[in-house]
Each structure stands twice: as structure tokens, then as C-alpha cells.
């Protein structure tokens, strides 16, 4: 279990992390989200013992990182941002070095290296210098060193950054496979990744937690949850056509395409089938009709842009969204 309690980190007067507290249990894959500079990487650097905290504490399986760093570091496998590795070494030499530092030798070391090479598919580049590898392979080398000791806790800072879609898929599959009976924390900008691999997501902005829940729960908190996107083929008075459907709270024109509208339901209500009935029975000029997708992204934008706009921020942001919710209901 990772327990983070009142963690604060300041750099020369700038507060990167502001009183952060949360715990992560075995079996959880925690997605750590936030805009650039929100404090994701800093938090990971503190958990892994690279940086010291200004105040607050981090314990991993009962070991405090401040008082017993070596015990914590032995438990954690870490892929730092950008997957750094020694460019002049070959993949094999690098993995041998990491395995040796992790305390393996002889047959055990060989076995472990062979296993990770197979898992992240490094076979063909084993004897190449890391310097000469493509970005995708470098990232996989970084992953290999992070999992070589079968860590109880895996911390991956942007594990799929710079990978092509096939490689992303592969890495996600690997993360899902690794997730059983251990803790995985990943940071990412890619929100689809969170829905794909994470069992829980924490969104931070300006060093504070602004949302914490399963990806589904966070999606449900978006004001577009249950909203319907409709593409019309010609001008048509949607507002008039939807007259009398009580569950519809609002109709917004889409800012991305002409004649696309978002029909927003009253919170907690379903409108999809009701509206669909009308579309069919009244023969609306419709080209496309579906539930709004990318809810996590909408939710992410709503909580992080408010947080960034008003500095101490989160409380004001939360108040603002409550007010708009009230208006919708009233």
C-alpha cells in the first residue's frame, strides 16, 4: 500500500504540490492525470525517493521514504519521464547492470533478463547500443528495467509517450498483465489510456487533487454525461422539436462542426431513447445520432481549467460548477 499524507513540495517559493493526501491499495492501477506542471512528475519523484518532500510523508508497504529509502526503492520499479538510460551501453549490458544493482546474480540474473526481454519484446535489439534505438525501443528498455525485479509497486511516468498506436496497445496490455496483485501508478495525458487500463484516476491541478474516482465515476460527473450528439443535414429548429421533453436541460451548438448540436440532459436523467423516438417518429433530418464520447476529457477540462484560472482555485471552481448545476435544475 502507498500512503501519501499531507505531502507538500515547494521549489524556491513555488508550490508544486500542495497538501496532497491519498492511498493506493494492491490491485489498483492508478492513473495520475493533470495538465503539464500540475505536479504529477514531482509527486512520482517524491514517492520514488528521487526528491525529498518539503513536508508530509510517503510510506510504501509501511516503509517511510524519508527514513528508510533503500527499502522503498527496492520495492518500487520506476520508469522516469522520458525513459532515461545509459546511451553508450547495449540493451543487454544495461539490463545486466540494473539486475546486478537489484541484487541478482548468476542464473537468477540471466533468467530475469531473459524474462523481461521476452515480455517487452527486446530480443532483436539486445546487442545494440541504446543510443541507436528508436524512441519506442528506448521506452521499452525503460519498462524492462522497471519490472526486472518483479516489483510490488510500479510507477510509470508517461509510459506510452512517443509510441505508435501498436506499441501503445502493447504497453497497455503489459500494464494490465502486470497489474494483478500489485500497485501500478501511471501518469499520462492520454485520457483514453485511463479508461483503457486504470481502475482509478486522480486528477490534480496546481498541486491539489481536484477529482478522485474510477474512470466511470469521473465520466458520470461530467455535465455531458448521458448527453446526445446530433448531426443535422439541414437547418432545423431543434429547440422547438424538443419542446415538452422534460429531461432535456439544454441544447448547445457544437463548436467543432456546423449543424452539430449537443443535447444535455437534466443531471441523473436518460434522454437517449426518448430523443431517438422523436427523431424516428417525426423524421428529423439527422445524419448522425449518438451519445457524447470523451466524457473523461470534458470532465478533465472542466476541473483543470477552472483550477488553473482561479489560483487557490479548487474551491471556487467547485462552487462555480455547483451553481451552474443549480441553474440547470431550476
Amino acid at each position, binding site marked *: 500500500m502507498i500512503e501519501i499524507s499531507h505531502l507538500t513540495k515547494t*521549489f524556491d517559493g513555488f508550490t508544486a504540490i500542495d497538501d496532497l493526501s491519498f492511498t493506493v491499495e494492491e490491485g489498483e492501477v492508478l492513473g495520475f492525470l493533470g495538465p503539464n506542471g500540475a505536479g504529477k512528475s514531482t509527486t512520482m*519523484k517524491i514517492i*520514488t*525517493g*528521487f*526528491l525529498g518532500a518539503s513536508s508530509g510523508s510517503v510510506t510504501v508497504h509501511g516503509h517511510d521514504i524519508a527514513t528508510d529509502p*533503500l527499502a522503498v*526503492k*527496492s520495492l*518500487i520499479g*520506476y520508469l*522516469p*519521464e*522520458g525513459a*532515461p*538510460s*545509459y*546511451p*553508450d*551501453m547495449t540493451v543487454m*549490458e544495461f539490463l545486466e*547492470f*540494473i539486475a*546486478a*544493482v*537489484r*541484487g541478482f546474480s548468476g542464473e537468477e540474473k540471466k533468467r530475469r533478463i531473459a524474462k523481461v526481454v521476452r515480455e517487452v519484446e527486446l530480443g532483436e535489439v539486445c546487442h545494440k547500443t541504446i543510443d541507436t534505438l528508436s524512441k519506442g525501443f528506448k521506452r521499452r528498455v525503460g519498462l524492462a*528495467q522497471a519490472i526486472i525485479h518483479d516489483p510490488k509497486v510500479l510507477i510509470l511516468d508517461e509510459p506510452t509517450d512517443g509510441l505508435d498506436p501498436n506499441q501503445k496497445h502493447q504497453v497497455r496490455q503489459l500494464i494490465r498483465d502486470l497489474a494483478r496483485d500489485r500497485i501500478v501508478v501511471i501518469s499520462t495525458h492520454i485520457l483514453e489510456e485511463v479508461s483503457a487500463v486504470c481502475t482509478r484516476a486522480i486528477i490534480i491541478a496546481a498541486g491539489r487533487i481536484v477529482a478522485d474516482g474510477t474512470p466511470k465515476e469521473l465520466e458520470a460527473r461530467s455535465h455531458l454525461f448521458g448527453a446526445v450528439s446530433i448531426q443535422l443535414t439541414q437547418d432545423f429548429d431543434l429547440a422547438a422539436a424538443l419542446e415538452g421533453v422534460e429531461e432535456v436541460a439544454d441544447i448547445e451548438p457544437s463548436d467543432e462542426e456546423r449543424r452539430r448540436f449537443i443535447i444535455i440532459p437534466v443531471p441523473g436523467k436518460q434522454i437517449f431513447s426518448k430523443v431517438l423516438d422523436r427523431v424516428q417518429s417525426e423524421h428529423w433530418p439527422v445524419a448522425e445520432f449518438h451519445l457524447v464520447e470523451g466524457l473523461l476529457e470534458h470532465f478533465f477540462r472542466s476541473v483543470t481549467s477552472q483550477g488553473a484560472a482561479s489560483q487557490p482555485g479548487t474551491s471556487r471552481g467547485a462552487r462555480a460548477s455547483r451553481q451552474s448545476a443549480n441553474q440547470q435544475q431550476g
Partner: protein
Amino acid sequence: MKNMGIIFKRELAGYFATPLAYVFIVIFLVMSGIFTFDMGGFYVRGQADLMPFFSFHPWLYLFMIPAIAMGLWADERKSGTIELLMTLPVTLSDAVLGKFLAAWALSGVALLLTFPIWITVNYLGDPDNGVIVAAYLGSWLMAGGFLAIGSCMSAMTRNSVIAFILTVAICFVFVASGTEIILNALRWAPQILIDAVAALSFLTHFDSISKGVLDLRDILFFVIFIGSWLFASAIVIEIKKAN
């Protein structure tokens, strides 16, 4: 301790994985030869010793050693591997010592490869080999002193060229403070200050060792000097790793 050995091995292999080690050794040997036979007047002196060889070492090291020290930490910072290294289960002292010892071993290898000069002097005459062994030891200790400064300067910056220049500048201070020029310029000062400045110089301690006088105080000077600069390196790394 075990991890220090692993880091030592990785670093040393790293020097030989790139041309750095070979370039360093070759240039070191060529320069030693030029200094000894050409500028040092090895033959003209008509004496069977290696004074011309060793007396140029402080000046040779002044430019050679910073070249192997400059990347020690600056490169780790630049490539981000410092984050990898410091989140592995190794202590900071393992890392600082392992890296330092690897660089020191490289300078030791270069020094040992000057053995043809030693063979030459034994072939031509009948030198005091005890003095020569002492001088080799002193030279290696002095190289360690230069390297320890380089380790600390390299920890200060992510740019290895800056680390090189800083190391040369500081090493120069520790070499030059023992020269006649500096000590004469300080004649106005109280004797105790002049002695203090001279006592901090590599030249003062290296001169006596290279004459075959293995005084414990001279050896201690280098050991403490190396220890202090490595300790400073550790502090600098700890402070600077955040940025």
C-alpha cells in the same frame, strides 16, 4: 559496498565503451613523452631518475584529469539517468565513490602504461626504484585530488564543458598556490598565511613524495583532500538534483 562495486564496473566499462578511455590514455602517454624527453631534458641532465617525468605531472593533470571528470555527474543530469540511478536501491555514497573510483582507476591505468619510461631509465642507469615507486604513488594520489575536484564541479552543472572549465580553474588554484610566483607575490603577508597557502598546494605535497619522502602527512593531505571534495560532491548532488 556491493553496489559501489557494480557502479564502479559500469562506469569503467563506460569509459572503454567510448573512445574516451583510449584517447585519454594515448594523449596522456604522448604528452608524458614530450614533457619528459623534450622539455624535461631527460638525456641532457645525465641523471638516472624520473624527475623530469614526474615534475610535469601537475601541469599535465591540470588539463587531462578534468576531461575525464567533467562527465561524471553532468552527463547523468543531462541525460536524466541521475533519476534512474538515484531511485535504484543504491546510496548516494555508493554512487559518488563508485564513479570516482572508476575515473581514478582509469587515470591509474594511464599512469601504469608509462612503464616504458621506467624501463628506459633502468636500462640507461641505476636509479633509486624506491623513489620512483613513491613518485608513482604520489602522482596517482594527486590525480585523485584533481578528480575529486572534478567530481564536485561536474555535480554543479548539467553542462560538461562548464564542468571542465570550472575544474581546470579550481585545480589551477591548488597547483599554482605552491609556485614561487604566487608565494613571492605574498611576501608582504605574515609567514603563517604564506605557509597555509603553500600547504594547500598539490605541488608542495607532491614534491616531497616524488623525491621519495613518503611522509604520512602528505599522504593524509591527499586522502583528506579527496574525501572532502567527494563529500562536497554528495552535498551538491543532493541540493541540485531537483532542477
